[in-house]
Every structure is written in structure tokens, then in C-alpha cells.
């Protein structure tokens, strides 16, 4: 049995998973079940950070991975992101890096910087 906190929403259910049968308890919704199974095989997280932007008023552009990426890829992703430079204008949802650190997941802008 392994115990963990569900990270799908602010509620933070305490989940228990049987590593043999993959039976999940403690969840209040189906998202918790999927989360617990993923967590014992390949834990995934959305990475949020900033990249340097050239613009009139902003120095940093907030970004995130469009979907969760493996926890094990975090360090490589951050290492890649630190050299990324973008130029305004940028819209919310614009793809900044199309395949971040070989995860197959794009890095997207989370703020509009118009000039």
C-alpha cells in the first residue's frame, strides 16, 4: 500500500493505492484514481516557470507546459528553458517551445504581452 496526496485539485484527497491490484481508495472523484496509478508508475507534473522576454514593460514571460510532463524530466526542462528568449508580442497560449526536453509536450505562454 502507498499513501499520497492527490494533486488534481485544491481539495487534496489522501489516496491509498495497492501496488499489486492498483486498487485506489480515498479518492472523491475518478481523477484521483488515475492520479494514483500514474503516481506509482510515472509521476507527472505541470511545470510552471518564466522565460526572458524582450518587450516594452515586461522582463519575464510566465510559461507552463501545456500538459503534465514526467517529474524526471523537470531538471532537463528547466535547463533548456533558461536559455530561451522570446520577443513581444505574445498571446496567452502561444507555443514557446514545441517539444520541451523530449517530452513531446509544448511549453506555452500564460500571459499576453502586446508590445
Amino acid at each position, binding site marked *: 500500500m502507498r499513501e*499520497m*496526496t*492527490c*494533486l*488534481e*485539485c*485544491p*481539495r*487534496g484527497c*489522501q489516496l491509498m493505492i495497492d501496488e499489486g491490484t492498483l486498487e485506489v481508495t480515498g479518492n472523491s472523484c475518478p481523477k484521483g484514481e488515475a492520479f494514483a496509478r500514474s503516481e506509482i508508475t510515472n509521476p507527472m*507534473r*505541470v*511545470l*510552471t*516557470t*518564466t522565460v*526572458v522576454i524582450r518587450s516594452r*514593460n*515586461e*522582463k*519575464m514571460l*510566465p510559461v*507552463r507546459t501545456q500538459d503534465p510532463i514526467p*517529474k524526471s524530466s*523537470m531538471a532537463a526542462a*528547466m535547463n533548456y528553458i533558461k536559455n530561451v528568449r522570446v520577443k513581444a508580442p505574445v498571446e*496567452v497560449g502561444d507555443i514557446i517551445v514545441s517539444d520541451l526536453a523530449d517530452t513531446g509536450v509544448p511549453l506555452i505562454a*500564460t*500571459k*499576453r504581452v502586446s508590445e
Partner: protein
Amino acid sequence: MYDLIVVGGGPAGLAAANAAWQKGIKKILILERDRELGGILNQCIHNGFGVKTFGEALSGPEYAYRFEKMLEDTGVEVKTDTMVLDIDDDRTVEAVNPTDGFVRYPAKAVILAMGCRERTRGAISIPGTRPAGVFSAGTAQRYMNIDGFMVGKRVVILGSGDIGLIMARRLTLEGAKVLACVEIMPVSSGLRANIARCLDDFGIPLLLSHTVTEIRGDKRVSGVTVQKVDEHMQPIPGTEQLFDCDTLLLSVGLVPENELTKNADISLDPRTRGAYVYENRETEKEGVFACGNVLHVHDLVDFVSEEATFAGEAAADYILNGERPRDCYRVTTSGGVTYTVPQMIRKDSGMKLVNIYMRVNRRVRKGDIVIRAGETEIARYHKENLAPGEMINTALPSVLMQKAEGHDALEVALEETE
């Protein structure tokens, strides 16, 4: 003359203005002191906002953007870089900005949505020197996420509020070493999910029942002393540990920012540090409403938006239909309920259900929230897993309040059942 002026363009102000517009109010002005709308959301680049409102885990700037987009389709006016100085008795709002200079805007109604700010080191008085390298967690967050400055290399975080937890992860991702998160209480006030993804994911220890008892350093922080505390939160001699760090972050709570409210002679509830309000979020001053973290500090931005939407609609109702009679029940608390919002409920509120929000002073596995008028029980709500860090809501049907006739107060109490 504006129908409605909203002071503050953060999550509360945006939702309130939008809600009032949707109810048919057309002359609305938002005054924001920063260069852009969005308030604190702009520096909260992590995700997890909007799960309740939008069914998605958005980052702070994305959440703000959703509300800004809604406003773009309305005729709501916005003035940024504008500092509100005073609100007069007749609801004239005095403000100043670089383009218009000093201006006076009369309004039929005003919504206070100034948000909150962080408690500082002064507020918790730690002995020691006064070197550089001591930041409130939110200040460090702004330096890193907006200004692009790294605040330190080896960091200790005092307090385990959500902003501190989020900063532990942020600093680690950017290459700093976070040595520990130190919490004086036996439990963290942060969300369990944040402890898991911000501390556990990175192997950062959470030292419960510990506190920082000394800050060392001359020009820059060179270390802090951490000690275990007893059940009265007093440091235990002999438990000193020295952490070799260059930075101390404080994540020790938030305080509603009510200077304008005080200046406007609106009295504040010492428990919430926000204004006393009626069920429609109207303050003692007719036509002046308050919502969001300026009223009481919320757990999630989703709840701020919800309350602000309600306040915006109530302000619209006031503008269109006038003031409701102020004859009301005062809400009192006992048995571990630390505060309620609202603090006053009109006998004729015009509402079918009145939501009463509250906090409790301890963890309770199973308990009842009981509402009484004198000896008469009006309502009883069974609740589970109550904690000081989690706001509780009860929806009281107005018909039940008839049982309170002849009384002036409704008492809200917590009764443990297990």
C-alpha cells in the same frame, strides 16, 4: 457620475465589475494602482487556479486573463496607474494618476476590492540583526517572477502558508537550495496538495513546531537559528540548530489592506480585519460594498471570484432598486467559530438562502455548525474534517430565520460530535 466605482482591479474587482455589468449597470469604472489589471495573480505563475470556476487548473495570469477577456466585451472603464486616496461620505472617490492628476469621481455605489498584503517580520518580531536577505515570500515571488531577479542561493522559509510552499518549489527549480520550511504550529496552514508538490517532490523538510529564533549576518544574512517550540509556542532551550543560509523568506500570513476603509470611517471587525458587512456585502456605509481578500482572507481565488460576483450583483441591485431596510440580526460566534462573514443579516434580505462563511479555531473530525436565536435552534449542519485553514460555508434558508423573530442576534457555534 458613475453608477459604480470598483477600487482595485485584482480578481475581486474584475469579477465584481463584470457581475454588475451583467446585471445591467452601464457606467462602471475600475481604479487600479498597478500598471495592469490582475493584481497578485500576475506574479502567481504556478497553476491550480480556476478548478472550481473554469474546471481547469490555470496559472494566475491565465485566470486573470479570462476575467479581463470578459471585461473587454463590456463597456466597463478601467484606469490603471491610479491610486485612490479617499472615499467621501457621499461616495465621491478621490484618486490621482499621471494623466488626469487629482480627480474626484462621484458614484452611486462603491465596491472595495483592495485585497490584502503580507504580514512582515515586524509583525512577528524575530530577534537578531537586520541584514539584507530577509523577504516576505510574496516580495520574493515578485522579484523572481516579474522582475527576473534571483533572491538567494541557500534559503530557509519561515511559515508554511501556501505562498511560502510555492516559493520553496520556485526557488528550487531556479537552482537555489531550500534547506527547510519551518512552521511554529503543529500543522501547516498550507494546502496538503502544496506540501506534496512543493516540498515532498523536492525532498525539502517541513519542520513543524519549530521557529526561527535568531537571524545572523552583518550586511547579508549568514544564517538563522531554528528551535523547537513547546505546546505554548515557546522555544525549548537546547534544541537550537544553525542553518547556514543567505536568505530567509517569511510566509506568516496575510492582512486585508483597509487603510481606505478606515479613512472612510467604516468600522472593521477585529477578527477578520475587514469591514463589518451585511449579507449582501454592503458595509455600514450605505452604497459601499466590500469583497475578496479586503473583506476576509480567502483560501482560493475561486472563492474570491464567487464572493465578488455576489457583491457586484448586490451593488447592481442597490443602484437599481435602492437600499433595503437595515433592520438585521447580528451574527455572533461561539464554541470555536472564530468569525463569520456576513456579520449582519437583514431580516428582509430578499434572498432565499443566505450563505454564512466562517472559520474554526481547531481541527475537528466530525462536528455540527449550529445556528441559534437565544435558546431556539434555527439550523444544524453536519460537517467533517474541519480545519482552521479551510473556510466553511453554510447556506441558511431565509424561511428558517422566521424562527428567530423577536431576537436581535443569531449565534453560530461549533459542536464536536466525535
